[in-house]
Protein backbone atom coordinates (compact mmCIF):
# COMPACT_ATOMS: atom_id res chain seq x y z
CA UNK A 1 0.00 0.00 0.00
CA UNK A 2 1.20 3.47 -0.89
CA UNK A 3 2.07 5.89 1.86
CA UNK A 4 -0.17 8.94 2.07
CA UNK A 5 2.65 11.14 3.30
CA UNK A 6 5.88 11.99 1.54
CA UNK A 7 9.27 12.17 3.21
CA UNK A 8 9.78 15.77 2.15
CA UNK A 9 6.37 16.87 3.42
CA UNK A 10 7.05 15.54 6.92
CA UNK A 11 10.60 16.82 6.92
CA UNK A 12 9.46 20.30 5.81
CA UNK A 13 6.67 20.38 8.36
CA UNK A 14 9.13 19.54 11.14
CA UNK A 15 11.60 22.18 9.94
CA UNK A 16 8.86 24.79 9.78
CA UNK A 17 7.73 23.98 13.29
CA UNK A 18 11.01 23.41 15.10
CA UNK A 19 13.55 25.29 12.99
CA UNK A 20 17.05 24.98 14.38
CA UNK A 21 16.24 21.97 16.56
CA UNK A 22 16.04 19.85 13.41
CA UNK A 23 19.70 19.26 12.65
CA UNK A 24 19.77 17.05 9.58
CA UNK A 25 17.32 15.25 7.38
CA UNK A 26 18.13 12.27 5.21
CA UNK A 27 16.37 9.39 3.48
CA UNK A 28 18.60 6.29 3.46
CA UNK A 29 16.79 3.44 1.69
CA UNK A 30 13.81 5.76 1.29
CA UNK A 31 13.28 5.90 5.06
CA UNK A 32 13.01 9.40 6.51
CA UNK A 33 15.74 9.88 9.11
CA UNK A 34 15.87 13.12 11.05
CA UNK A 35 18.44 14.18 13.58
CA UNK A 36 16.97 16.24 16.37
CA UNK A 37 18.54 18.28 19.15
CA UNK A 38 18.29 16.01 22.25
CA UNK A 39 16.57 18.71 24.27
CA UNK A 40 13.84 19.05 21.63
CA UNK A 41 13.16 15.32 21.18
CA UNK A 42 10.29 15.18 23.64
CA UNK A 43 8.56 18.14 22.02
CA UNK A 44 9.04 16.74 18.51
CA UNK A 45 7.59 13.33 19.33
CA UNK A 46 4.74 14.90 21.22
CA UNK A 47 3.94 17.26 18.32
CA UNK A 48 4.10 14.46 15.72
CA UNK A 49 1.53 12.56 17.73
CA UNK A 50 -0.82 15.51 18.19
CA UNK A 51 -0.59 16.95 14.67
CA UNK A 52 -3.68 15.56 12.96
CA UNK A 53 -2.49 16.00 9.39
CA UNK A 54 0.50 13.73 10.13
CA UNK A 55 -0.96 11.40 12.80
CA UNK A 56 2.41 9.78 13.51
CA UNK A 57 1.07 8.30 16.68
CA UNK A 58 2.55 4.83 17.05
CA UNK A 59 5.91 4.21 18.68
CA UNK A 60 7.57 1.29 16.94
CA UNK A 61 10.87 1.06 18.68
CA UNK A 62 13.55 2.77 20.74
CA UNK A 63 17.17 1.74 20.63
CA UNK A 64 20.67 2.97 21.32
CA UNK A 65 23.84 2.90 19.28
CA UNK A 66 27.36 3.43 20.57
CA UNK A 67 29.94 5.25 18.45
CA UNK A 68 33.03 5.35 20.68
CA UNK A 69 35.15 7.38 18.24
CA UNK A 70 32.71 10.29 17.83
CA UNK A 71 33.72 12.73 20.56
CA UNK A 72 30.74 14.30 22.35
CA UNK A 73 28.35 12.33 20.15
CA UNK A 74 29.09 8.88 21.53
CA UNK A 75 25.54 7.63 21.83
CA UNK A 76 22.72 7.77 19.35
CA UNK A 77 19.19 7.24 20.59
CA UNK A 78 17.02 6.07 17.74
CA UNK A 79 13.24 6.29 17.74
CA UNK A 80 11.17 4.57 15.09
CA UNK A 81 7.72 6.04 14.71
CA UNK A 82 4.91 5.27 12.36
CA UNK A 83 1.51 6.46 11.32
CA UNK A 84 -0.90 3.61 10.78
CA UNK A 85 -3.56 5.77 9.16
CA UNK A 86 -1.12 7.29 6.66
CA UNK A 87 1.08 4.19 6.37
CA UNK A 88 4.20 6.21 6.99
CA UNK A 89 7.34 5.32 8.90
CA UNK A 90 10.14 7.55 10.11
CA UNK A 91 13.20 7.53 12.29
CA UNK A 92 14.33 10.19 14.75
CA UNK A 93 17.85 10.33 16.10
CA UNK A 94 19.47 12.26 18.88
CA UNK A 95 23.14 12.16 19.80
CA UNK A 96 24.29 12.54 23.39
CA UNK A 97 27.75 12.56 24.89
CA UNK A 98 29.44 9.97 27.07
CA UNK A 99 29.82 12.43 29.99
CA UNK A 100 26.22 13.50 29.94
CA UNK A 101 24.09 10.77 28.34
CA UNK A 102 20.73 12.33 29.13
CA UNK A 103 17.52 12.77 27.23
CA UNK A 104 13.90 13.38 28.24
CA UNK A 105 11.81 10.28 28.74
CA UNK A 106 8.74 9.92 26.53
CA UNK A 107 6.84 7.60 28.85
CA UNK A 108 4.27 10.35 29.35
CA UNK A 109 3.56 10.32 25.60
CA UNK A 110 3.74 6.59 24.96
CA UNK A 111 3.21 4.11 27.80
CA UNK A 112 5.01 1.48 25.76
CA UNK A 113 8.23 3.49 25.89
CA UNK A 114 8.72 2.42 29.50
CA UNK A 115 10.49 -0.87 28.92
CA UNK A 116 12.16 0.24 25.70
CA UNK A 117 13.86 3.05 27.62
CA UNK A 118 14.74 0.74 30.47
CA UNK A 119 16.34 -1.65 28.01
CA UNK A 120 18.32 1.16 26.41
CA UNK A 121 19.47 2.24 29.86
CA UNK A 122 20.41 -1.33 30.71
CA UNK A 123 22.42 -1.79 27.51
CA UNK A 124 24.02 1.64 27.13
CA UNK A 125 23.58 3.57 30.35
CA UNK A 126 21.58 6.33 28.68
CA UNK A 127 19.61 8.23 31.30
CA UNK A 128 16.01 9.06 30.50
CA UNK A 129 15.00 12.05 32.59
CA UNK A 130 11.54 11.76 34.04
CA UNK A 131 11.30 8.00 33.63
CA UNK A 132 9.20 6.57 36.48
CA UNK A 133 11.36 3.54 37.17
CA UNK A 134 14.71 3.64 35.41
CA UNK A 135 16.32 0.39 36.57
CA UNK A 136 17.88 -2.52 34.74
CA UNK A 137 15.46 -4.81 33.03
CA UNK A 138 17.21 -7.70 31.31
CA UNK A 139 20.46 -7.98 33.24
CA UNK A 140 21.00 -8.60 36.91
CA UNK A 141 20.69 -5.60 39.19
CA UNK A 142 24.19 -6.25 40.49
CA UNK A 143 25.80 -5.78 37.08
CA UNK A 144 28.20 -2.85 37.21
CA UNK A 145 28.56 -1.97 33.54
CA UNK A 146 26.43 -1.47 30.46
CA UNK A 147 27.22 -4.47 28.27
CA UNK A 148 26.29 -3.19 24.81
CA UNK A 149 28.94 -0.49 24.90
CA UNK A 150 31.59 -1.37 22.38
CA UNK A 151 34.47 -1.61 24.84
CA UNK A 152 33.01 -4.57 26.72
CA UNK A 153 33.54 -8.15 25.70
CA UNK A 154 30.80 -10.39 24.55
CA UNK A 155 32.10 -13.54 26.16
CA UNK A 156 31.66 -14.79 29.65
CA UNK A 157 34.87 -13.85 31.41
CA UNK A 158 34.65 -16.64 33.97
CA UNK A 159 34.87 -19.43 31.45
CA UNK A 160 37.97 -21.61 31.73
CA UNK A 161 37.25 -24.71 29.68
CA UNK A 162 37.35 -23.01 26.31
CA UNK A 163 40.76 -22.56 24.72
CA UNK A 164 40.84 -19.05 23.29
CA UNK A 165 42.95 -20.13 20.33
CA UNK A 166 40.11 -22.27 19.00
CA UNK A 167 37.37 -19.71 19.46
CA UNK A 168 38.89 -16.72 17.75
CA UNK A 169 39.01 -14.48 20.78
Amino acid sequence: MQSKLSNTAVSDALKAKFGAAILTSDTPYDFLTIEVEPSAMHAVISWLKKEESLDISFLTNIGGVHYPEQTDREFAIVYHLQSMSNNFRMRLKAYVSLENPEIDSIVDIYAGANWMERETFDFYGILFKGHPNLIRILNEDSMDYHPMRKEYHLEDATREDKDDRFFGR
Partner: protein
Amino acid sequence: MNTLEKQKSKIEATVESSIETIDGDIATLNLGPTHPSTHGIFQNVLKVDGEKILSSVQTVGYIHRAFEKIAERRPYSQITPLTDRLNYCSSPINNLGWYMTVEKLIGAEMPKRVDYMRVIIMELARIADHLVCNSVIGVDAGALTGFTYLFQQREKIYELFEEVCGARLTTNLGRIGGFERDFSPEFHRKLKDFLKDFPKVFNEFDKLLSRNRIFMDRTIGAGAISAERALQYSFVGPNLRAAGVDYDVRVLNPYASYEDFDFIIPVGTQGDTYDRFQVRQEEIRQSLRIIEQAFNNLPEGDYKADIPEFFLPPKEEVYNNMEALIYHFKIVMGETPIPVGEVYHSVEGGNGELGYYLISDGGRSPYRLQFRRPCFIYYQAYPEMITGQSISDAVLTLSSMNVIAGELDA
Protein backbone atom coordinates in the same frame (compact mmCIF):
# COMPACT_ATOMS: atom_id res chain seq x y z
CA MET B 1 -21.85 2.62 26.96
CA ASN B 2 -20.56 -0.47 25.24
CA THR B 3 -19.78 -3.73 26.96
CA LEU B 4 -16.09 -3.04 27.18
CA GLU B 5 -16.55 0.25 28.96
CA LYS B 6 -19.11 -1.31 31.26
CA GLN B 7 -16.75 -4.09 32.11
CA LYS B 8 -13.89 -1.68 32.63
CA SER B 9 -15.85 0.55 34.95
CA LYS B 10 -16.98 -2.57 36.81
CA ILE B 11 -13.38 -3.62 37.26
CA GLU B 12 -12.37 -0.17 38.43
CA ALA B 13 -15.24 -0.13 40.89
CA THR B 14 -14.33 -3.51 42.30
CA VAL B 15 -10.69 -2.58 42.68
CA GLU B 16 -11.55 0.61 44.49
CA SER B 17 -14.10 -1.02 46.74
CA SER B 18 -11.73 -3.83 47.61
CA ILE B 19 -8.97 -1.40 48.48
CA GLU B 20 -11.38 0.43 50.75
CA THR B 21 -12.77 -2.62 52.51
CA ILE B 22 -9.70 -4.70 53.12
CA ASP B 23 -7.96 -4.17 56.41
CA GLY B 24 -4.52 -5.64 56.19
CA ASP B 25 -5.74 -8.79 54.42
CA ILE B 26 -3.64 -8.24 51.34
CA ALA B 27 -1.36 -11.14 50.55
CA THR B 28 1.71 -11.13 48.37
CA LEU B 29 1.88 -13.94 45.87
CA ASN B 30 4.80 -14.87 43.67
CA LEU B 31 3.53 -16.02 40.31
CA GLY B 32 6.71 -17.43 38.87
CA PRO B 33 9.57 -17.56 37.97
CA THR B 34 8.99 -21.31 37.72
CA HIS B 35 5.23 -21.40 37.88
CA PRO B 36 3.87 -24.05 35.50
CA SER B 37 1.40 -21.70 33.90
CA THR B 38 3.92 -19.08 32.89
CA HIS B 39 5.28 -21.15 29.94
CA GLY B 40 8.68 -19.70 30.27
CA ILE B 41 10.37 -17.88 33.03
CA PHE B 42 8.69 -14.68 34.16
CA GLN B 43 8.07 -13.45 37.63
CA ASN B 44 4.99 -11.55 38.69
CA VAL B 45 4.76 -10.44 42.28
CA LEU B 46 1.06 -10.04 42.84
CA LYS B 47 -0.72 -8.24 45.62
CA VAL B 48 -3.92 -10.16 46.07
CA ASP B 49 -7.02 -9.79 48.16
CA GLY B 50 -8.30 -13.33 48.19
CA GLU B 51 -8.49 -14.23 44.51
CA LYS B 52 -8.53 -10.69 43.25
CA ILE B 53 -5.36 -9.10 41.93
CA LEU B 54 -4.73 -5.58 43.16
CA SER B 55 -1.35 -4.96 41.61
CA SER B 56 1.47 -6.73 39.89
CA VAL B 57 5.19 -6.12 39.57
CA GLN B 58 7.00 -7.92 36.76
CA THR B 59 10.54 -9.16 36.52
CA VAL B 60 11.87 -10.31 33.18
CA GLY B 61 15.28 -11.07 31.74
CA TYR B 62 15.67 -14.55 33.17
CA ILE B 63 16.85 -15.92 29.86
CA HIS B 64 18.58 -12.85 28.52
CA ARG B 65 21.07 -14.25 26.03
CA ALA B 66 22.55 -11.07 24.53
CA PHE B 67 21.47 -11.64 20.93
CA GLU B 68 22.21 -8.07 19.95
CA LYS B 69 25.73 -8.22 21.32
CA ILE B 70 26.43 -11.54 19.60
CA ALA B 71 25.10 -10.11 16.33
CA GLU B 72 27.82 -7.46 16.41
CA ARG B 73 30.46 -10.21 16.34
CA ARG B 74 29.13 -12.56 13.68
CA PRO B 75 29.14 -12.41 9.87
CA TYR B 76 25.73 -11.83 8.34
CA SER B 77 25.04 -15.43 7.44
CA GLN B 78 25.82 -16.59 10.97
CA ILE B 79 23.20 -14.34 12.51
CA THR B 80 20.38 -16.54 11.23
CA PRO B 81 20.75 -19.07 14.06
CA LEU B 82 20.20 -16.24 16.52
CA THR B 83 16.94 -15.24 14.88
CA ASP B 84 15.79 -18.87 15.18
CA ARG B 85 15.89 -18.55 18.89
CA LEU B 86 13.89 -15.34 19.18
CA ASN B 87 10.36 -16.60 18.78
CA TYR B 88 11.15 -20.28 18.59
CA CYS B 89 7.54 -21.25 17.93
CA SER B 90 7.80 -19.74 14.46
CA SER B 91 11.52 -19.65 13.68
CA PRO B 92 11.21 -19.62 9.86
CA ILE B 93 9.46 -16.23 9.93
CA ASN B 94 12.38 -14.81 11.90
CA ASN B 95 14.92 -16.39 9.53
CA LEU B 96 13.26 -15.13 6.40
CA GLY B 97 12.66 -11.70 7.91
CA TRP B 98 16.38 -11.43 8.56
CA TYR B 99 17.25 -12.45 5.01
CA MET B 100 14.85 -9.85 3.67
CA THR B 101 16.52 -7.22 5.84
CA VAL B 102 19.94 -8.06 4.44
CA GLU B 103 18.54 -8.25 0.91
CA LYS B 104 17.10 -4.78 1.41
CA LEU B 105 20.53 -3.57 2.51
CA ILE B 106 22.37 -5.07 -0.46
CA GLY B 107 19.55 -4.24 -2.87
CA ALA B 108 18.85 -7.75 -4.07
CA GLU B 109 15.67 -8.60 -5.97
CA MET B 110 14.13 -12.02 -5.45
CA PRO B 111 12.49 -14.08 -8.21
CA LYS B 112 8.74 -14.57 -7.78
CA ARG B 113 9.19 -18.24 -7.01
CA VAL B 114 11.36 -17.46 -3.99
CA ASP B 115 8.70 -15.05 -2.71
CA TYR B 116 5.95 -17.63 -3.04
CA MET B 117 8.06 -20.35 -1.43
CA ARG B 118 8.78 -17.97 1.43
CA VAL B 119 5.11 -17.19 1.83
CA ILE B 120 4.28 -20.88 2.08
CA ILE B 121 6.95 -21.43 4.73
CA MET B 122 6.05 -18.31 6.72
CA GLU B 123 2.35 -19.14 6.79
CA LEU B 124 3.10 -22.69 7.89
CA ALA B 125 5.18 -21.23 10.68
CA ARG B 126 2.36 -18.88 11.64
CA ILE B 127 0.00 -21.84 11.89
CA ALA B 128 2.51 -23.70 14.08
CA ASP B 129 2.88 -20.65 16.31
CA HIS B 130 -0.83 -20.06 16.73
CA LEU B 131 -1.45 -23.76 17.32
CA VAL B 132 0.86 -23.75 20.33
CA CYS B 133 -0.73 -20.62 21.72
CA ASN B 134 -4.33 -21.66 21.27
CA SER B 135 -3.90 -25.23 22.42
CA VAL B 136 -2.08 -23.98 25.50
CA ILE B 137 -4.95 -21.62 26.31
CA GLY B 138 -7.04 -24.77 26.32
CA VAL B 139 -4.60 -26.53 28.62
CA ASP B 140 -4.66 -23.63 31.06
CA ALA B 141 -8.43 -23.64 31.02
CA GLY B 142 -8.35 -27.35 31.82
CA ALA B 143 -8.82 -28.89 28.38
CA LEU B 144 -5.75 -31.00 27.66
CA THR B 145 -7.47 -32.86 24.84
CA GLY B 146 -7.06 -30.10 22.31
CA PHE B 147 -3.36 -29.89 23.02
CA THR B 148 -2.67 -33.57 22.43
CA TYR B 149 -4.90 -33.58 19.38
CA LEU B 150 -3.40 -30.51 17.74
CA PHE B 151 0.19 -31.39 18.49
CA GLN B 152 -0.17 -34.36 16.20
CA GLN B 153 -0.92 -31.95 13.37
CA ARG B 154 1.84 -29.64 14.48
CA GLU B 155 4.29 -32.51 14.08
CA LYS B 156 3.24 -32.61 10.43
CA ILE B 157 4.32 -28.98 10.02
CA TYR B 158 7.63 -29.94 11.58
CA GLU B 159 7.93 -32.75 9.07
CA LEU B 160 7.40 -30.22 6.29
CA PHE B 161 10.16 -28.01 7.68
CA GLU B 162 12.39 -31.05 7.97
CA GLU B 163 11.75 -31.79 4.33
CA VAL B 164 12.88 -28.27 3.39
CA CYS B 165 15.85 -27.76 5.67
CA GLY B 166 16.43 -30.80 7.87
CA ALA B 167 15.55 -29.22 11.21
CA ARG B 168 12.35 -29.14 13.18
CA LEU B 169 12.29 -26.23 15.55
CA THR B 170 15.30 -24.00 15.12
CA THR B 171 15.20 -24.26 11.39
CA ASN B 172 17.89 -21.93 10.05
CA LEU B 173 15.82 -22.19 6.92
CA GLY B 174 16.88 -20.75 3.59
CA ARG B 175 19.74 -18.48 2.65
CA ILE B 176 20.35 -14.82 2.00
CA GLY B 177 19.10 -14.73 -1.57
CA GLY B 178 16.64 -17.59 -1.62
CA PHE B 179 16.62 -21.23 -0.61
CA GLU B 180 19.38 -23.79 -0.56
CA ARG B 181 17.30 -26.10 -2.76
CA ASP B 182 13.90 -26.28 -4.37
CA PHE B 183 10.92 -27.89 -2.65
CA SER B 184 11.23 -31.63 -3.08
CA PRO B 185 8.44 -33.79 -4.56
CA GLU B 186 8.09 -35.27 -1.08
CA PHE B 187 7.39 -31.78 0.27
CA HIS B 188 4.69 -31.25 -2.34
CA ARG B 189 3.07 -34.54 -1.40
CA LYS B 190 3.23 -33.85 2.32
CA LEU B 191 1.91 -30.32 1.95
CA LYS B 192 -1.04 -31.59 -0.09
CA ASP B 193 -1.78 -34.14 2.62
CA PHE B 194 -1.51 -31.48 5.29
CA LEU B 195 -3.86 -29.12 3.49
CA LYS B 196 -6.33 -31.96 3.15
CA ASP B 197 -6.15 -33.38 6.69
CA PHE B 198 -5.50 -30.37 8.84
CA PRO B 199 -8.77 -28.43 8.38
CA LYS B 200 -10.79 -31.39 9.64
CA VAL B 201 -8.78 -31.72 12.82
CA PHE B 202 -8.66 -28.00 13.26
CA ASN B 203 -12.43 -27.63 12.94
CA GLU B 204 -12.91 -30.31 15.57
CA PHE B 205 -10.60 -28.40 17.87
CA ASP B 206 -12.54 -25.25 17.09
CA LYS B 207 -15.82 -26.95 17.97
CA LEU B 208 -14.29 -28.22 21.18
CA LEU B 209 -13.54 -24.73 22.50
CA SER B 210 -15.08 -21.91 20.48
CA ARG B 211 -18.68 -22.40 21.58
CA ASN B 212 -17.89 -24.30 24.75
CA ARG B 213 -19.82 -22.70 27.59
CA ILE B 214 -17.13 -23.29 30.21
CA PHE B 215 -14.38 -22.00 27.96
CA MET B 216 -16.41 -18.94 27.02
CA ASP B 217 -17.20 -18.16 30.64
CA ARG B 218 -13.54 -18.45 31.51
CA THR B 219 -12.24 -16.29 28.69
CA ILE B 220 -14.83 -13.64 27.77
CA GLY B 221 -13.93 -10.46 29.58
CA ALA B 222 -10.70 -11.88 30.98
CA GLY B 223 -7.65 -9.68 30.51
CA ALA B 224 -9.31 -7.12 28.26
CA ILE B 225 -7.54 -4.09 26.87
CA SER B 226 -9.02 -1.27 24.82
CA ALA B 227 -7.71 -0.32 21.41
CA GLU B 228 -6.44 3.05 22.67
CA ARG B 229 -4.47 1.52 25.51
CA ALA B 230 -3.18 -1.22 23.22
CA LEU B 231 -1.87 1.40 20.81
CA GLN B 232 -0.37 3.35 23.70
CA TYR B 233 1.53 0.23 24.66
CA SER B 234 2.67 -0.35 21.04
CA PHE B 235 0.75 -3.60 20.76
CA VAL B 236 1.00 -5.37 17.42
CA GLY B 237 -0.15 -8.58 15.83
CA PRO B 238 -3.06 -10.72 17.01
CA ASN B 239 -3.19 -8.97 20.37
CA LEU B 240 -3.77 -5.58 18.78
CA ARG B 241 -6.18 -7.00 16.24
CA ALA B 242 -8.20 -8.61 19.03
CA ALA B 243 -8.68 -5.10 20.41
CA GLY B 244 -10.10 -4.02 17.07
CA VAL B 245 -7.25 -2.40 15.12
CA ASP B 246 -6.72 -3.97 11.71
CA TYR B 247 -2.98 -3.46 11.56
CA ASP B 248 -1.05 -6.12 9.71
CA VAL B 249 2.41 -5.60 8.23
CA ARG B 250 1.61 -8.08 5.48
CA VAL B 251 -1.04 -5.71 4.16
CA LEU B 252 0.32 -2.28 5.04
CA ASN B 253 3.94 -2.85 3.99
CA PRO B 254 3.81 -6.00 1.88
CA TYR B 255 6.99 -8.02 1.59
CA ALA B 256 7.62 -11.27 -0.27
CA SER B 257 4.75 -10.54 -2.69
CA TYR B 258 2.04 -10.69 -0.04
CA GLU B 259 0.09 -8.22 -2.16
CA ASP B 260 -0.62 -11.07 -4.61
CA PHE B 261 -2.77 -12.99 -2.17
CA ASP B 262 -6.33 -12.63 -1.14
CA PHE B 263 -6.90 -12.83 2.60
CA ILE B 264 -8.64 -10.90 5.32
CA ILE B 265 -7.36 -9.48 8.59
CA PRO B 266 -9.56 -10.79 11.38
CA VAL B 267 -10.26 -8.31 14.18
CA GLY B 268 -11.92 -8.63 17.55
CA THR B 269 -13.94 -6.10 19.47
CA GLN B 270 -13.24 -6.53 23.17
CA GLY B 271 -9.52 -7.26 23.26
CA ASP B 272 -10.07 -10.01 25.81
CA THR B 273 -8.74 -13.55 26.00
CA TYR B 274 -11.61 -14.95 23.97
CA ASP B 275 -11.06 -12.45 21.17
CA ARG B 276 -7.35 -13.15 21.09
CA PHE B 277 -8.15 -16.85 20.83
CA GLN B 278 -10.65 -16.26 18.04
CA VAL B 279 -8.38 -13.92 16.11
CA ARG B 280 -5.67 -16.57 16.11
CA GLN B 281 -8.15 -19.26 15.07
CA GLU B 282 -9.25 -17.15 12.12
CA GLU B 283 -5.67 -16.30 11.21
CA ILE B 284 -4.92 -20.00 10.96
CA ARG B 285 -7.77 -20.35 8.46
CA GLN B 286 -6.52 -17.32 6.50
CA SER B 287 -2.99 -18.75 6.51
CA LEU B 288 -4.34 -21.95 5.02
CA ARG B 289 -6.00 -19.87 2.29
CA ILE B 290 -2.74 -18.08 1.57
CA ILE B 291 -0.79 -21.35 1.44
CA GLU B 292 -3.31 -22.82 -0.98
CA GLN B 293 -3.12 -19.77 -3.24
CA ALA B 294 0.68 -19.72 -3.19
CA PHE B 295 0.99 -23.46 -3.65
CA ASN B 296 -1.44 -23.66 -6.55
CA ASN B 297 0.12 -20.70 -8.33
CA LEU B 298 3.75 -21.43 -7.54
CA PRO B 299 5.56 -19.61 -10.37
CA GLU B 300 8.19 -21.28 -12.49
CA GLY B 301 11.68 -19.98 -12.04
CA ASP B 302 14.72 -20.26 -9.89
CA TYR B 303 14.67 -20.95 -6.16
CA LYS B 304 17.45 -18.41 -5.62
CA ALA B 305 18.40 -14.95 -6.72
CA ASP B 306 21.38 -14.29 -8.93
CA ILE B 307 23.70 -12.82 -6.29
CA PRO B 308 26.82 -15.02 -6.37
CA GLU B 309 28.66 -12.84 -3.85
CA PHE B 310 26.11 -13.73 -1.15
CA PHE B 311 24.63 -17.07 -2.14
CA LEU B 312 26.87 -20.11 -1.61
CA PRO B 313 27.63 -21.82 -4.93
CA PRO B 314 26.88 -25.55 -5.27
CA LYS B 315 29.67 -27.82 -4.06
CA GLU B 316 30.47 -29.28 -7.51
CA GLU B 317 31.19 -25.81 -8.79
CA VAL B 318 33.34 -24.96 -5.79
CA TYR B 319 35.61 -27.86 -6.63
CA ASN B 320 35.71 -27.27 -10.38
CA ASN B 321 35.37 -23.56 -10.91
CA MET B 322 37.79 -20.88 -9.75
CA GLU B 323 35.19 -18.13 -9.48
CA ALA B 324 32.84 -20.26 -7.42
CA LEU B 325 35.70 -21.20 -5.12
CA ILE B 326 36.52 -17.54 -4.52
CA TYR B 327 32.88 -16.72 -3.75
CA HIS B 328 32.63 -19.73 -1.47
CA PHE B 329 35.72 -18.65 0.43
CA LYS B 330 34.55 -15.06 0.73
CA ILE B 331 31.08 -15.99 1.94
CA VAL B 332 32.29 -18.56 4.45
CA MET B 333 34.97 -16.25 5.83
CA GLY B 334 32.58 -13.30 5.88
CA GLU B 335 34.74 -11.23 3.53
CA THR B 336 31.98 -10.17 1.14
CA PRO B 337 31.79 -6.38 0.86
CA ILE B 338 28.56 -5.07 2.39
CA PRO B 339 27.22 -1.59 1.63
CA VAL B 340 27.28 1.03 4.36
CA GLY B 341 23.82 2.05 5.46
CA GLU B 342 20.96 1.56 7.81
CA VAL B 343 17.71 -0.24 7.14
CA TYR B 344 14.61 -1.08 9.07
CA HIS B 345 12.61 -4.01 7.88
CA SER B 346 9.64 -5.59 9.56
CA VAL B 347 7.68 -8.75 8.99
CA GLU B 348 4.47 -9.98 10.52
CA GLY B 349 5.75 -12.58 12.95
CA GLY B 350 3.68 -14.92 15.05
CA ASN B 351 3.26 -12.18 17.62
CA GLY B 352 3.08 -9.22 15.29
CA GLU B 353 5.51 -6.76 13.84
CA LEU B 354 8.98 -8.22 14.18
CA GLY B 355 11.43 -5.52 13.18
CA TYR B 356 15.11 -5.59 12.30
CA TYR B 357 17.02 -2.35 12.61
CA LEU B 358 20.36 -2.93 10.98
CA ILE B 359 23.26 -0.49 10.82
CA SER B 360 26.14 -1.55 8.62
CA ASP B 361 29.51 0.18 8.55
CA GLY B 362 30.70 -2.02 5.72
CA GLY B 363 32.37 -4.48 8.06
CA ARG B 364 31.95 -8.24 8.13
CA SER B 365 29.31 -8.05 10.88
CA PRO B 366 26.59 -5.50 11.57
CA TYR B 367 27.66 -2.40 13.47
CA ARG B 368 24.39 -2.60 15.33
CA LEU B 369 21.45 -4.91 14.96
CA GLN B 370 18.37 -4.33 16.99
CA PHE B 371 15.40 -6.62 17.01
CA ARG B 372 12.02 -5.05 17.58
CA ARG B 373 10.59 -7.86 19.67
CA PRO B 374 6.80 -7.60 19.91
CA CYS B 375 6.58 -9.73 23.08
CA PHE B 376 8.95 -7.54 25.00
CA ILE B 377 6.99 -4.45 24.16
CA TYR B 378 3.47 -5.65 24.80
CA TYR B 379 4.16 -7.75 27.88
CA GLN B 380 4.58 -4.56 29.90
CA ALA B 381 0.82 -4.00 29.66
CA TYR B 382 0.18 -7.23 31.53
CA PRO B 383 -0.25 -5.71 35.03
CA GLU B 384 -2.79 -3.26 33.68
CA MET B 385 -4.68 -6.09 32.00
CA ILE B 386 -4.92 -8.33 35.04
CA THR B 387 -5.56 -5.78 37.77
CA GLY B 388 -8.98 -6.44 39.22
CA GLN B 389 -9.15 -9.91 37.76
CA SER B 390 -8.80 -13.24 39.51
CA ILE B 391 -5.58 -15.23 39.50
CA SER B 392 -7.01 -17.89 37.19
CA ASP B 393 -7.90 -15.16 34.68
CA ALA B 394 -4.37 -13.80 34.92
CA VAL B 395 -3.01 -17.21 33.94
CA LEU B 396 -5.28 -17.41 30.92
CA THR B 397 -4.45 -13.84 29.95
CA LEU B 398 -0.76 -14.63 29.98
CA SER B 399 -1.12 -17.68 27.78
CA SER B 400 -3.42 -15.86 25.37
CA MET B 401 -0.87 -13.05 24.93
CA ASN B 402 1.55 -15.69 23.66
CA VAL B 403 4.53 -14.32 25.54
CA ILE B 404 7.61 -16.19 24.33
CA ALA B 405 10.53 -15.93 26.73
CA GLY B 406 13.18 -16.18 24.01
CA GLU B 407 11.75 -13.23 22.16
CA LEU B 408 11.02 -11.24 25.29
CA ASP B 409 14.42 -11.52 26.89
CA ALA B 410 16.50 -11.33 23.74
